[in-house]
């Protein structure tokens, strides 16, 4: 499978996430779109890892070339889990104060 197909797929998923962040006003949906963008990047990292692995695979079948990207994806998942717990706590706190999850209430830093 050409690497370009994977790049196009991940770019499409990432752009859908960007559009979601720009278009929706529900803070939870915006947060979910950020998760979607993170997952698109993860998929692209794994695809690149397998691309470099495939280049070395023909000569040495047990090569571990490109394993760093998969470790990196693992750490991205770790950080995303921590980020989600704190972010959802912030959204719950905001809902308690304003009784709404509308992100347009969050413009108090503007002035």
């Amino acid at each position: 499978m050409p690497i370009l197909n994977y790049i196009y797929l991940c770019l499409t998923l990432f752009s859908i996430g960007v559009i979601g962040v720009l278009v929706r006003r529900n803070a939870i949906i915006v947060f979910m779109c950020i998760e979607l963008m993170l997952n698109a990047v993860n998929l692209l990292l794994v695809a690149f890892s397998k691309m470099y692995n495939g280049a070395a695979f023909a000569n040495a079948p047990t090569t571990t070339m490109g394993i760093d990207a998969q470790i990196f994806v693992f750490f991205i998942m770790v950080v995303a889990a921590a980020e989600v717990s704190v972010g959802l706590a912030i959204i719950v706190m905001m809902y308690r104060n304003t009784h709404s999850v509308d992100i347009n209430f969050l413009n108090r830093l503007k002035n």
Partner: protein
Amino acid sequence: MNTLEILFYALSAFAIVSAVMVLISKNPIHSVLWLILVFFAISGHYILMNAQFLAIVNIIVYAGAIMVLFLFVIMLMNVKKDKEPQKQHLVKFIGVIAGGSFLTLMIALVKQTSQLQGKTVLLKEGTIGLIHPLGKALFSDYVVPFEISSVLFLSAMVGAVIIGKK
């Protein structure tokens, strides 16, 4: 077209359709369920590339833990779907235009990079996605970041509890 290509295109179409449905469904609970389907499609891609450990971790962590957390928060908040404020049509239109031009620009850039032409992804073979090489690398070369991530989790836990208690 062989089986791998059919699987690739089917999973890609499934992921993109589900991602669009995350955006356009009015009920937040439906959005969460569609996002779980996106994560399952991405896990299918990982399995296709023989990254078995990441596929399982993706299902357990994302589809299992994070999405359940989202569902809990939505159910706690009792968000009514007709109460959700909508952006003006002009703002929505501008958002879609901005995202679409980002996509077009990036595709045009990627298409003319010479380093990526003719490179292929190794499907269904290779051992780096299995748990044995990954565990070896994680506990030898990457043991310090691994331990630091436990501190990160502890601080996230403390932070979530402190923010939630107020």
